[in-house]
């Protein structure tokens, strides 16, 4: 009659790692900074960036960590090319997106270091990972920065140091819609929020589900708030609002516009504008229903583009998937974008030098283009070309007009922990104040758990 306390904890955790359902609240996907122009910039000399990656005498196997919310195909293609050229293999380990940060931190604290890893965007990651002690510093490294668009490079700098090499493209959150359904019902993307509701009513009257929310999976329901944030909350709290939240000088619960987002999401449910079984909604089913034209719109991130391409083909994504931002009460709203992910190399990685070499290899123009060919997006490298999806062209227009803003999650060091759980409860009981307070308290709890100043 012994209770295997420690052992079962270890077993439980091992299982946790395997059985976790995929996605974490939009911490995935790649993207570039505001003002990142696409393929227009002049190409820099390709040879400058190509570091000598010749065949190594003793081939090694590098470990590369990535969140399972990321598309791995473009990486495996580059890694194959790298192996051909150098003989070094790259083992790609895909970890659950929702716990990616903490699984990474755990590996750091136990000394089980990867050789390199892909991290979510932003210099706030430097704080989290204690970069000055743990990570390789890149600012003086040759063959890295030649082709990176300068604004993108600048966004990586903190106190003159750079611990992450940006890699990927601009990501976006907002409303993705089935253009065929819009054409059938005879509606256009909305001019303001009321317009969005009117459109939804028309679609409902035509017997089609206006919106789909993946409440069962949890994370998709957060997109409503994150894409709504840049449209509603940012203008209200101003440019230093995020700073105040970072220092815990402003409470989420005290921002009326945050509360308004809860009210608005409840309104969609109460008006019957969401799918029938709201609580059972999953990301996977959303893709099916939207692809089949049974659902018109979803608050989503651009990961859906490559998913839909897998399920319904390139033509569908090219012709039938559109994007518009979360509309404000007065205009079409602000597009929410995410900066590019970043490649990081632990200073004490077993194969540190080979990993640095691999990063340089990945930055070579051919490999950058191979990445965008597999995973179209607004490029962050000079001279890189990418065929954008129409939905990405749509968001580029907003970026070019200066109507875009970076995901609030990329600007805050503490996270919106258990937000998905809060929202599931909210979909059950519809209690705005309870949900708002829980959201606010959990943010503070995370700041405290991360030992951030001010919390």
């Amino acid at each position, binding site marked *: 009659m012994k*209770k295997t306390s420690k052992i079962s*904890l270890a077993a*439980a955790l091992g299982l946790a790692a395997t*059985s976790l359902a995929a996605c974490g609240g939009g911490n995935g996907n790649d993207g570039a900074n505001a003002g990142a122009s696409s393929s227009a910039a002049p190409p820099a000399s390709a040879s400058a960036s190509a570091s000598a990656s010749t065949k190594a005498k003793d081939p090694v196997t590098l470990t590369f960590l990535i969140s399972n919310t990321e598309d791995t195909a473009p990486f495996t293609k580059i890694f194959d090319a790298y192996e051909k050229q150098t003989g070094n293999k790259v083992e790609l380990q895909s970890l659950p997106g929702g716990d990616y940060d*903490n699984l990474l*931190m755990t590996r750091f604290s136990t000394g089980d270091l990867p050789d390199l890893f892909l991290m979510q965007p932003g210099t706030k990651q430097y704080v989290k990972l204690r970069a000055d002690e743990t990570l390789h510093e890149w600012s003086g490294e040759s063959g890295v920065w030649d082709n990176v668009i300068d604004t993108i490079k600048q966004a990586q700098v903190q106190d003159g140091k750079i611990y992450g090499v940006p890699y990927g493209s601009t990501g976006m959150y907002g409303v993705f819609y089935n253009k065929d359904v819009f054409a059938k019902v005879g509606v256009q993307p909305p001019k303001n929020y009321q317009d969005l509701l009117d459109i939804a009513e028309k679609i409902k009257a035509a017997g089609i589900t206006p919106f789909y929310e993946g409440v*069962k999976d949890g994370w998709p329901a957060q997109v409503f708030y994150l894409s709504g944030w840049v449209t509603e909350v940012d203008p209200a709290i101003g440019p230093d609002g995020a700073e105040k939240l970072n220092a815990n000088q402003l409470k989420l619960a005290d921002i009326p516009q945050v509360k308004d987002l809860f009210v608005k999401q409840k309104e969609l449910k109460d008006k019957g504008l969401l799918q029938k079984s709201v609580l*059972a909604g999953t990301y996977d089913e959303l893709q099916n229903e939207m692809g089949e034209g049974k659902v018109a719109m979803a608050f989503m991130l651009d990961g859906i583009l490559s998913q839909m391409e897998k399920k319904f083909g390139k033509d569908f994504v090219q012709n039938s998937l559109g994007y518009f931002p979360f509309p404000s009460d007065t205009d079409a709203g602000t597009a929410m974008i995410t900066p590019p992910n970043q490649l990081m190399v632990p200073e004490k990685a077993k194969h540190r030098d080979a990993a640095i070499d691999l990063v340089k290899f990945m930055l070579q123009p051919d490999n950058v283009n191979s990445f965008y060919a597999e995973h179209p997006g607004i490029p962050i490298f000079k001279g890189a070309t990418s065929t954008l999806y129409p939905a990405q062209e749509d968001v580029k227009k907003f970026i070019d007009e200066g109507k875009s803003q970076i995901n609030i999650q990329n600007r805050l060091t503490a996270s919106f922990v258990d937000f998905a*759980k809060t929202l599931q409860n909210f979909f059950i009981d519809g209690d705005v104040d309870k949900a708002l307070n829980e959201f606010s308290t959990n943010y503070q709890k995370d700041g405290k758990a*991360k030992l951030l100043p001010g919390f």
Partner: protein
Amino acid sequence: MESRKYPLYFSFPALLVFLLFFIAPTFVGVYYSFTDWNIHAQTVHFIGLDNYRALFQEPRLKTALVNTLVFAAAVTVLQNVIGIALALVLNEKLKLRNVLRLIFFMPYVIAPVVIGYVFRAIYHPDHGIVNRALREFGLGALAQDWLNDPKWALFSIIMTDLWRVSGFAMVVYLAGLQFIPKDLLESASIDGASYWSRFRHIVFPLLAPSFTVNVLLSLIGSMKVFEMVMVLTEGGPGYTTEVFYTYIRSTFSMGQMGYSTAINLVLFVLVTAIGVPVLMAMKKREVDM
């Protein structure tokens, strides 16, 4: 014949492994539950009872506690009722007896994670076979969103786990039934005892050792439930099916190692506090043959 005793040192290798990988970590774990061990901090400090103080103010603990106890009670009772019933039926001379035994035992061999994913599909409110069958038979009014309606979620998890574990209880009871002397049952029959009274006065008391094993195993196992809840609902919707281990997983994944260990220790105490008296009570009623 003299009874020879093996020397004690024969047990040392096993004892060493046990001490090193079980006893020692357990004690270290107890210590860490009194610290602020956190993956975001570089140092670990002793903080006394702070973790426990914070823990007992947390409403999620109460939810996890209630759900764990409901789950454990339901699974323990029903698993044994179903297990005994299955064992009695499949102890009779039936056609296909061995095939049926195999069929009922099979779910226990499948990984809970796999079962969980299969049942997610079975329980789907629109496309799942449960609701489709109900609608087919004109019982559409009984169709529920089994895993996502807070009223039904825990019930559905319990049913799934019962499907998985009842076959195991059956096998243990079947083994126990083989040890009941046939002549005892036959003489009772001749004396005119009904099936029920034979079960009540002969079979059930003599099954006591199997009963003890089964009850204890299912009690401990079900209080430590994790995979099934994780896969079916992740403790949701919201926190409605939160159990101890889903709660521990969530704090652990936030990097609060010390705090998570404290929750685990609470569960350890709880399992001991329930398990030991149950074991003692049941040992008492076991009959020597």
